[in-house]
């Protein structure tokens, strides 16, 4: 069991790191892009906008 937990923790640290909120916002942004694209509206601008938001929030937390 310990190995499974350690393995999971390794991949969590590896991909998500110390700011899980950033990862959560990325998932929300992907969902939003899919929703906008499905309604036949250009959706390429969603992810760049989301990255501005994610980076701003994450950097603000890390530097405060």
């Amino acid at each position: 069991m310990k190995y499974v937990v350690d393995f999971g923790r390794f991949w969590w640290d590896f991909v998500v790191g110390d700011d899980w909120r950033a990862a959560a916002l990325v998932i929300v942004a992907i969902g939003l892009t899919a929703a906008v694209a499905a309604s036949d509206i250009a959706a390429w601008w969603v992810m760049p906008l989301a990255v501005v938001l994610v980076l701003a929030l994450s950097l603000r937390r890390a530097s405060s």
Partner: protein
Amino acid sequence: MTAGVFLVLSAFLASAVEMVEALTIVLASGVARGWRSSLTGVGAAVLTLAVIVAALGPALTVIPINALRLVVGGLLLTFGLQWLRKAILRASGFKALHDEDEIFSRELAEARTAAPLLRGGVDWYGFTLSFKGVLLEGLEVVFIVLTFGSTQGSIPLAALGAGVAIVLVAGIGFAVRAPLARVPENTLKFAVGVMLTTFGIFWSTEGAGASWPGSDAALFGVLGFVIALSFASVALLRRRKRTMLVTAEAGA
């Protein structure tokens, strides 16, 4: 063509950074615990990484491209934003710069004080130190090569970029037998963060069903956007750091 150049360059830069870090650990292990144990650890780690690539590489190629781009794009974006965030914090003074000389000294001191642990003529501490160092740094290279390569439809091209970096860093490391402290590692990490974030934005958008104006050429636009955003973030945080220092001095 555009994506191919980005692919090789990204795999090369990311692998070079990871290999510089792995080299520091292997050198510390070799100097403190003997080269036989250290190089055996390197060999075992490389073999493990090769097995992972051989197992996962073909499996990724059978996944539908849009599903792959969605998952890989999301993972790369999350992973890339981690790199970029740390690079911006380093460049603006909120996080200590990565210093290979300092890391080498610390690893060397720890390796020298650990008790000898011989098994089959191999020092177990030296073996484990090298094995873990190469495996963990190498896993990041494998992750980047497999995700970039499979999404772009060319794992061999990504592997070529990574392979050139590994041979180059290992060759220079063997020649100088010292940590590669002169490599502008913090700048390289910044560049890799920018590349990973760029690919992450591009692929996750395509995977979610949206199209880029100008198709593959939009990568340049996304790249320019991420670079501008990064430099603006560094400038804003530097100003914030200065204000914090002035406030702290005034309060002292």
